[in-house]
């Protein structure tokens, strides 16, 4: 049982979602975050003020999966999120101690397996 955190470009969000649904990973949390990962600087100008945008908008996926689903999830995040340019994002896989499905009280493996699977 792992927690997969994927941080991707916002414009690739839909591609990642498509890839995840295709490999039947359901149960996804998604949030908009800002971060810095070494992309080439973007410069914006507002009247006389010129700024480097040090933080870029990113989309952060959090996906708790049973062990069998870890590799498909990582593959989907990579396929959906890759453009080949600096700034495509990162994936972190963390061990997961417990999981509880609130509706039924199921725990662990049962809780992170989609109902339909």
């Amino acid at each position, binding site marked *: 049982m792992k927690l997969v955190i994927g941080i991707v*470009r916002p*414009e*690739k969000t*839909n591609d990642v979602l498509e890839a995840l649904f295709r490999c039947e990973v359901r149960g996804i949390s998604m949030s908009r975050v*800002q971060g*810095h990962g*070494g*992309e*080439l*600087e*973007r*410069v*914006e*100008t*507002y009247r*006389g*003020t*010129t*700024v*480097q*945008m*040090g*933080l*870029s908008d990113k989309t952060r996926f959090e996906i708790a999966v049973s062990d069998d689903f870890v590799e498909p999830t990582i593959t989907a995040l990579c396929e959906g999120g890759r*453009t080949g*340019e*600096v700034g495509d994002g990162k994936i972190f896989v963390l061990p997961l101690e417990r999981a509880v499905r609130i509706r039924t009280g199921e725990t662990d493996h049962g809780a992170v397996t989609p109902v339909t699977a």
Partner: protein
Amino acid sequence: MTGVDTGDTAWMLAATALVILMTPALGLFYAGLVRSKNTLNTFMMCIAALAVATVTWAVIGYSFAFSEGNGIIGGFDYAFLKDVTFTPRDGTTIPHLLFFAFQASFCIITTALVSGAVVERMRFGPYLAFTALWSVLVYSVLAHWSFGGGWLIEGGTLDFAGGVPVEMGSGFSALAAALVVGTRKDYGRQALLPHNAVYVILGAGLLWFGWFGFNGGSGFGTGQGSVLAFTNTLLAPASTLVVWAICDAIRGRKVTAIGAATAIIVGCVLITPAGGYVSPGWAMALGGLGALPSYAIVMLRPRTRVDETLDVLAAHGMAGLTGILFIGFFAQTSWNGVSDGLLYGNADQLLWQTLAAVATPLYAFGMTFGLLKVMGLVAPLRVSEREEAIGMDVGQHGEEAYASGEGAILIRPPDGEAQLADGRTEGVPVANPA
């Protein structure tokens, strides 16, 4: 001054300003309909028309539209505003300069309208070139046909405020532009939704407000035609709103806000050609019945591969065509003092309205299609797929509509302030890219 009426002039000064307001209003309307990452680019396409089309209109467009020429296009008499002074133009009671400014506002808004077909993907540079060429090659020619002594107005086509050059001209050009520039990369694959419905409604409301100057000013004074057109501009869109809401309710069980905003535009367009020629009762009928063909196109177009993004064809092309044809049936001499339609015994009027409704779309579509094809040979019309994904605002303008400022590092202090408080001259990046 001989022949100048102060009352007419006062109203036309105000009406011109009202029409100028329509272009930023259209910017707001369009900007709300696109995704947030393309807000500024979409808005700037309308602002660009204020810049470019005004200049081309003063340099040559006005002359091609309104100076003596042949049936197709005017001549060079008024190029660079030569002889456009305080003396009224024949048949008007306002200074010629004011007539020019009022007509300029029409050229600007029409040019801006076409952008709705190519938003979210067309490069800004080629778009500027397109507005310059289109405002002369398409708008000026069509304005000459129906306003400036060309073959339609001479033959007898009635077009009060621009069903031919403004509405059909922009609508069918938009269709051509969408076909040449091509679909957005995600079109038909992802849901591409309006990002701010409030902008859309506010934009539509301001457009309606401006339209009182557009239609009400097209009598070039305060005469009966202007008053009739002004009031019809209230009545027709109201009927369109009612019918549109009913259609929405039947189709989806809910009355939508963006549908209502669209209805306001469609209603204003419907009454644009007919405003000063039909009775208030017929204006309400036009607003109601005329909603249906435009509604059908708005519903069917997204099911095609034609990414005419903001439905300029449905809202302007189709509604303008409906309005032009409507005059052929329901014009009344007792109201307009000019001509009757078929219903009142004058079949000839319908013939000339039909000719306008056939020739205008053909010219607008053909000319725009050819123009963009040729431009496409010189330089690419679209941004790269990558830039389209990131958004036009950052890519084309280096700005964001909704910048938070978080993580922004000042790289050049404002002039006159050589150093920051602690003696450094630049901000510190949060991290140095490798």
